């Protein structure tokens, strides 16, 4: 549960302007080289505790399925895998595709959606948002 400030009015009294860039359509996964990944450049160390179920699974994955080369050392139940540089790390790197984001307007706020989202072109969204804010500002100034 997020720590929100409670809004002053009921949910029907709000209108939400949203911008979405879904990972599936607006980002692409890239290899370590493309993002100057430190683990790729210098190598990295992964330590797992094989006393735990998670640790055993991680160690099993690294040994049997990861397809990466490593040097292994063990100290008690702690297993240290040292990966030399020049390999893809375990992180997923993403870069933005610089696409136009999906802009939408809907009724309600974070508590509920009162009218379904309406998708808009970015220019129209900015225009609509700007007009809306301008109306509110005028109302506030009028008192």
């Amino acid at each position, binding site marked *: 549960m997020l720590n929100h400030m409670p809004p002053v009015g009921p949910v029907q009294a709000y209108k939400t302007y949203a911008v979405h860039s879904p990972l599936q359509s607006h980002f692409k996964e890239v290899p370590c080289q493309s993002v100057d990944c430190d683990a790729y450049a210098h190598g990295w160390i992964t330590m797992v505790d094989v006393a735990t179920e998670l640790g055993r699974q991680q160690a099993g994955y690294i040994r049997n399925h990861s397809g990466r080369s490593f040097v292994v050392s063990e100290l008690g139940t702690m297993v240290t895998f040292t990966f030399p540089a020049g390999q893809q790390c375990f992180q997923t790197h993403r870069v933005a595709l610089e696409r136009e984001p999906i802009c939408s307007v809907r009724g309600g706020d974070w508590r509920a959606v009162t009218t379904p989202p309406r998708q808009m072109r970015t220019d129209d969204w*900015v225009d609509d948002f700007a007009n809306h804010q301008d*109306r509110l500002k005028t109302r506030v100034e009028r008192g």
Partner: protein
Amino acid sequence: MAKQTGLAWTTLTVEDADGSTARDIRNDVTDFEFATPRETQDVTGIDKSAMERLLLLADFSIKMHGVCNFGAVPSATAHGVFATVPSTSVQRTTVIGIGGKSLTNQVLYTDYAIKRDKNGELTYDVPGVLADGTVPTWA
């Protein structure tokens, strides 16, 4: 068919905990939204004071959502900016800009929640509210 502008988001900056250094966090934010009052709907009766309506009119909230990035240079990532949210209470100037227009807000962020879902995505949500009661306007 409507013309496509092909615009990418040009500005999305949030200030650091020092309240003066703006950080560009576009790369780490995938979604954000503003909940604004609906001007046409008066929620207080006409017998109420105008003050209540004013409060509502100035009541904005913001939510950002993105992918965690614990980059090598923390100050250049959204994590570097938002990691101080739980420990500080500082108004952060937040600017969004697109198509030559920009919207500047003084925002008080109230949470920095990190979530790992079933398929391994590590994402965060940061809600905030307008801090100074000034209605943000596009410029």
